[in-house]
């Protein structure tokens, strides 16, 4: 008995060993070539993806003359930081770029907090199947994913609410994203009912149950949604185009959009194009915070989509 006990593990180890060796032998020709080719292709794809951005960074540090002559490559030619100083100071030395940056940060912070709060407030009741109103409310919410009032109707609404040219004109139209609400609703549905009922027995009202039980249990989805909403507010320029006429209230994304586009090309004789180094510099400055943060939070993007999608 004891011999048998001893011999069994030895046999297993040997089997595994042989198995691995066999695999290695099998992989050595085709698989190795595949791995090498695959790696090369992946490196090329990664380089092709990175190249435009690196080129942009290089251009932003290059001199205007070098850019015009087409001499820029991945290494800046005529290295200088004058363009950055110029972009930050602005044509009139009024540091308008910093103001746009400040606006974006303000809109992103306020917008994200409000969006999260109201999205939770909507998603949580929607997750309760026993609520009869959900029969009406759910289709009503989902309907807005596919049909909208149209541009002019929305515009008139903002005008009549006197929200044009205010921060709220920028934030409110995208306060609640139906898609994110549905993701959150699915997540809330997975919270065990027993915990909520226990809270109610202990004397919590409905909001108390949400705030003290559901919310702490939903940290993953709330973190993901924070990210989603923050990126949405940071990148949005279209609402600014529609609702923010006063330039002092523009977010940086819209300012960037106007300078990149410049004039209407040669067909508009009045138009002049911004220098390429100014465009590149503004682009780098605008995208920088996202680039810095993105590697650390990138996994949440993928996870976030899965979080609400799987229902046990």
């Amino acid at each position, binding site marked *: 008995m004891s011999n048998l006990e001893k011999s069994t593990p030895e046999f297993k180890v040997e089997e595994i060993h042989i198995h691995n060796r066999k695999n290695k032998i099998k992989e050595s020709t085709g698989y190795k070539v595949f791995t090498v080719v695959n790696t090369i292709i992946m490196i090329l794809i990664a380089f092709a993806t990175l190249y435009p951005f690196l080129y942009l960074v290089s251009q932003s540090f290059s001199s205007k003359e070098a850019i*015009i*002559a*087409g001499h820029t490559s991945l290494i800046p030619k005529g290295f200088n930081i004058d363009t950055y100083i110029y972009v930050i100071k602005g044509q009139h030395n009024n540091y308008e770029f910093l103001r746009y940056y400040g606006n974006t940060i303000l809109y992103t912070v306020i917008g994200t907090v409000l969006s999260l709060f109201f999205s939770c407030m909507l998603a949580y009741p929607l997750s309760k199947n026993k609520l009869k109103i959900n029969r009406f409310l759910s289709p009503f919410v989902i309907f807005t994913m596919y049909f909208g009032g149209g541009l002019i109707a929305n515009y008139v609404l903002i005008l009549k609410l006197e929200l044009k040219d205010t921060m709220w004109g920028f934030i409110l139209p995208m306060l609640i994203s139906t898609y994110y609400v549905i993701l959150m609703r699915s997540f809330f549905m997975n919270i065990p009912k027993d915990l909520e009922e226990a809270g109610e027995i202990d004397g919590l009202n409905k909001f108390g149950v949400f705030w003290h039980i559901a919310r702490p249990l939903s940290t993953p989805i709330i973190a993901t949604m924070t990210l989603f909403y923050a990126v949405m507010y940071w990148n949005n320029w279209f609402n600014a*185009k529609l609702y923010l006429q006063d330039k002092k209230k523009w977010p940086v994304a819209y300012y960037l959009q106007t300078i990149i*586009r410049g004039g*209407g090309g040669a067909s508009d004789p009045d138009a002049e194009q*911004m220098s390429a180094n100014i465009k590149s510099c503004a682009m780098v400055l605008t995208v920088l915070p996202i680039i810095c943060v993105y590697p650390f939070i990138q996994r949440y993007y993928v996870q976030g989509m899965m979080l609400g999608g799987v229902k046990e």
Partner: protein
Amino acid sequence: MKTTTLKKLSCIGLAVSMLSGFVACNKNTEEETSSEATTIPDQIETTEDPDANLPYTYGLGKTFHADQPVTYTMFFSDASWYPMVDTWKTEGIFKEIENRTNVTLDIKSYDSGDYMDNITLDINAGNAAYIIPKIYDDSAFVDGGAIVPISDYVDKMPYYTDFYNTYNLADDIKTITRANGKYYKLPGMKEANLINYSFVIRKDIWDAAGVDVVELQKDWDWAEFLDALQKVKKYMVAQGMCSESDYIWSDLWCGNESGQGSGGNLLGVMGSTYEVNAGWNIGNGMRYDQASDKYIFSPTTDNFKQFVTTANSFVAAGILDPETFTQDDATATAKYYSGKTAIMSINQGQWANYEENMTAQLGAGNFENYVITIPVGTTNNSTVAPERLENGVMISQKALDELGEDGFIQMLRFVDWLFYSHEAYDLTKWGIEGVHYDVVDGQKVLKDGFCCGGLGYGNDAEGSMTDIRLQWGYAGGNFWYGGTVAEMTDNLIPPVADYVNRDAEYRDTPPLAPGIAPTADQNEEINLIATPLISNVNSWTLKFITGQEDINAKWDEYVKSCEDLNAQGLVDIYAQLYKGK
């Protein structure tokens, strides 16, 4: 049972709404066709009444001035390369307008790139400003009723009337007149059209190659021009400036970026000399033919075949780079600035820019630019557009509703002064005389310490001068355009003025095409036919020119493809609209 009743009721409801819609459409059509078209007069008689007791001063030669301060809202196209700042209102252009007229302009500005989108939204949402400048195409607005048919009121505008009558603009105005005989925008009007787009050459290289461009250009045709370019290339190859396989003409404004897949500026210019629509000027392909007195589809004519053959000869001879039709503008300019090519497109506004960049690249004195007079094709006509009109100003119906008839006419007379008086033209373009500019020997010159990118006056190396456009909003694109030849040329620097004058001297003025006024339905039909048709024409044209298809062998197939896409349909619609003289 209930469901059946509900269904029946819904069906009846739908039927009624469809029927009422149909009746409404019918009524509309009847109104449209029964309304008698107004005609555009050769001369407008003004209804100026100097003795009338009006709360404002106005009239030809006078500055409009309101007795009481008034405020009018105005849209403003704000260019990102000289963005509006507060000083424009507190001490610049808007303040000076207010000082002179007692009118405060309440500016609703939008970024120039989004200007049309935003004002369209505002106009459709009932939020239009009273004065709507910088309108190129007004067709999106005329049917909505939000814009005043301004032709009903132009007799109240002395400056407009005076310019219209002095320079006989009736035929030009007919080109923007709608089917009901009215027009909806006050266009910028020009005494004559001046050439804008041409080609700049490296005259130092051309001279060294033994090509006397100054003498040749007077009446050269495209074949002689090609000979000249071949001589230049031969010289450049001999000097080691390029190799035999290089192209010495690699143009901008023709690629996907600015050329919009049509061949852009180069083909537009070359096509004009063959009396065909091409490149930027392709439009819907329809063109008025003087000889037959009717509108023809120009891309299938013999002239068009000659034009593509000519264009192809430049590519075939190794002169014109076929990448011209795909490359970015920056690639083309980099080649010219660095001396790899010896010719490139230019417009009036680009001269200073080219000079500045080439000085940085090649060093001052190491190059000489020169703008040539465009070679002749089948006609000696200039390549300028025949219509002497520019973008214009619309007035919103809201102004009429809110100000009442008298207040509205008062506003129109202010608009008349602002956009058509010589005084306002000088003010909006040059600033205040004696403060920002002086008139020396009849020429306007900026005073010391001032510069202006828009007028061709660059800043010094230290950037110590004040730009009157950036600081105070003068020389902006919302106000000054059109005008007399003297006004339009008062800021042209000598080399630009030279090529403008040469074009006027060596080339003839193109004849004006008779105006046609399609209805909204006809416009839609024209667009439906033209969109795929022109896409087909552009695609074949580029294939012919770059040598991908043989012109002689494939010409019939190309013409057949246009016929299959209903080119005749366009001709028929135009034949309905224009019956001949």
